[in-house]
């Protein structure tokens, strides 16, 4: 799912517009698997799959694989439908630069939910 994010985001102006001033790398963890996403002016330039050695990132978003799977359902259930819904239930952790994460929160929420477009 994460590998498909560039194609799901980059052609969707309704997502890209919220990230147009963003030029950062951030980590998304699906269970034990790390993905480093690099964003240039709102477009996801690359998704690299870990493990990584000494790779810098601005912030990290970590959740269990089962939590992401529920989050990515086409019609997610209550409590699984938003990044902050996962936060309230304790099913996601944010690390690193929280200011950057909040500054791009709309972009991040839409980007991370983009795999729903592929859900059956």
């Amino acid at each position: 799912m994460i590998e498909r994010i560039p194609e799901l985001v980059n052609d969707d102006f309704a997502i890209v517009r919220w990230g147009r001033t963003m030029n950062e790398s951030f980590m998304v963890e699906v269970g034990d698997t790390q993905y480093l996403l690099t964003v240039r002016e709102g477009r996801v330039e690359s998704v690299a799959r870990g493990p990584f050695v000494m790779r810098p990132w601005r912030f990290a978003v970590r959740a269990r694989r089962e939590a992401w799977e529920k989050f990515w359902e086409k019609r997610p259930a209550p409590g699984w439908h938003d990044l902050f819904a996962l936060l309230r239930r304790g099913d996601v952790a944010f690390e690193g630069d929280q200011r950057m994460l909040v500054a791009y929160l709309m972009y991040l929420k839409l980007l991370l939910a983009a795999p729903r477009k592929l859900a059956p």
Partner: protein
Amino acid sequence: MSARLEPVIGRYAHLELGGRPHRLYFEEAGQGIPLLCLHTAGSDARQYRAVLNDPEVTRSYRVVAFDMPWHGKSSPPAGWEREDYRLDTAAYTDLVMTVARELGLARPVVMGCSIGGRIVLNLALEHARSLRALIGLQSAAYVERYYDAAWLNHAEVHGGQASGAIAYGLMSPMSPEAQRWETVWHYMQGGPGVFSGDLFFYQVDGDLRDRIGAIDTSVCPLYLLTGEYDYSASPQDTEAAAARIRGAKVTIMNGLGHFPMSENPDAFLGYLRPVLEEIRTTTN
């Protein structure tokens, strides 16, 4: 003239709040039982436009929705540049009761959402005899902080974009896109520090858990309506509050989130109309 005009009238009222003069914006429509509507933290009374425009409601109710000071078209009082906005339980309670009195709303029904859903619990405790009924939307006696609202008022974060992103997620993914994004827009228009200032009441000052057991619903009926997709004031939070209040009537609204009246007005009105009809026919 060919433009379609709504029956909603917007006006400004001059009144004193906390000893200071305010110019308060409000909208109203309909005739009958006064129904005073309270918007959510960091937003404004535009959230209630579907209620104000519903002929089934306005046939029997005089619906009034006002922008709280610092919100929407109600500017902050003179001198605001020297203070931080911070809402607390006493000031919010006084605001609602003063607006009701100054606008001549006799024994109104008060309906509030989120922070408004919280304050109706305090109105039930302190002003039950002056109110005909109370409707709490997304009511919880308290919500444990799960994010730091200070980021919403930070010079290196766009408060409008961040507040909009917070509001966006609280809605149901099944609610219509246009209504969801209009709800987000209201949040994006909030002044700096206003959403986080309201959240001081919601997350810190307004903990009513130990007090709500004293609410007497035989004096003033209490209806609690909560959308199932709300994770801020979740159905479990509402049910936990209702478990302490004898006679509170709970409805969980399927497919709705934290902003039922604005994110999916048609679905919400389907839940609200029977409540208003029950209030009209069973109270006086």
